[in-house]
């Protein structure tokens, strides 16, 4: 799967599952500050990623994930 495809899937997950407005969702957007995803929301996001991409994500892998782009790259590396 190309990075761009992963981004599109992530974008639609954020829109449909979390109700985030689509124009806010860019590769540069910060999860916490720009998309208002708090600590509970991060757990939801991870669960949604795991279901959508049929992968498992460990907490340690999330340490450096602060933006949509970083999340997309992590997912891409695991596919």
């Amino acid at each position, binding site marked *: 799967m190309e990075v761009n495809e992963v981004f599109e899937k992530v974008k639609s997950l954020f829109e449909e599952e*979390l*109700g985030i407005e689509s124009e806010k969702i860019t590769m540069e957007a910060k999860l916490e500050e720009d998309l208002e995803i708090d600590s*509970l*929301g991060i*757990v*939801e996001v991870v*669960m949604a990623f795991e279901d959508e991409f049929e992968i498992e994500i460990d907490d340690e892998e999330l340490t450096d994930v602060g933006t949509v782009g970083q999340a997309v790259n992590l997912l891409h590396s695991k596919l």
Partner: protein
Amino acid sequence: MTKQRVVVTGLGTINPLGNNVITTWKNLINGVSGVDYITLFDASDLPVTFAGEVKDFDPNDYMGKQNARKLDRSGQLSIFAAEEALRDAGFDIDQPLGEEFGIVFGTGIGGIGATEDAVRIYDERGSNRISPLAITQLMPNSSTGQVAIKYGIQGPSLTITTACAASANAIGEAKKMIEQNIVDKVLVGGTESGTTSMTIGAFAQIKALSKQNEEPQRACKPFDKNRDGFVMAEGSTVLILESEKSANERNGKIYGFVEGYGSSTDAYHITAPSEGGVGALRAMEQAITNADINAEEIDYINAHGTSTIANDVNETLAIKSLMQDYAYIVNISSTKSMTGHLLGGGGAFEAMASLLSLKNNQIPPTINLNDPDEECDLNYTANNSIEKNIEYVMSNSFGFGGHNAVLVFSKQ
């Protein structure tokens, strides 16, 4: 410090009769039923297929999907009702209310819908698929915390869970906070949204619910010979309680005074009322004493009036013990005949109805009362509202667990 008198300066509500105070009051006075067939989920497998649901409320429209999905329906309704009450009382909802404001909410079963959802997910998909929002949605103090966050309330807070007496107790405890000068403004709410499959099924199992599925609007018939149980309902009602001094200083309008509060426990049976309503009677006596009036000064009793066999007879006996001959004269009504039973939200809703009665000098009826039970032989204001000068109203709320909370409101 002198004891403060407590007034109500704002009202807000969302309930089966309307999504604001004015519509709700109009429907109460016109004897409209808010009960209908269940639409929130497929209830066809349940022995009871109707309830008092909130209508025309889209939480995504109201607060945006990203916020709405974080809350149980009970929390969404609480935030909605609180907004109307705060605006009504003249507060700027865009500014945090701060440390001067306290908050007390009553609920019977909190975010029971979120509990049911989480258990379903756990059973189907395992513990690592339970929503991280489950705990914050299902905890009984969820509405208290979410309303406090939304409007920046930083004073003392309490959540009261005395079943169907919860939000009457909430008003009483808030009254004490103000009287004791702990804080001079308290947002008090009562919320329930337990019209869910497991919860209705479970209440039906204990024979508490009416099963008159053929005619939902006529199922709740307090004090009638053909009553067969209560009707589940959902909603939220919020009152702004304030010291009289604080209300006057900011020229707030005053609906009435919270003049008396009584609270007692049956210590008899976990669901059945004590025989002769003696537990309820003690709470009524305390409320009257606390208001420093005689029982004969009460013009209207907003009864607990659930439409269960046991409640309506025992409440009637308690009123007779309290008022003797005057019991046959005083106007009594059960607004639950129109709303259904808001459980922990009932006390706050009925406090609102009591205050609007005082303000408008009108008494809402007990609808569906066509064939009175011989043991229920008082003046229940059957089927039609009446106009009458009202100085004092008493509102009764009794809950499973044997909890009794009674409030007295006055005009002056």
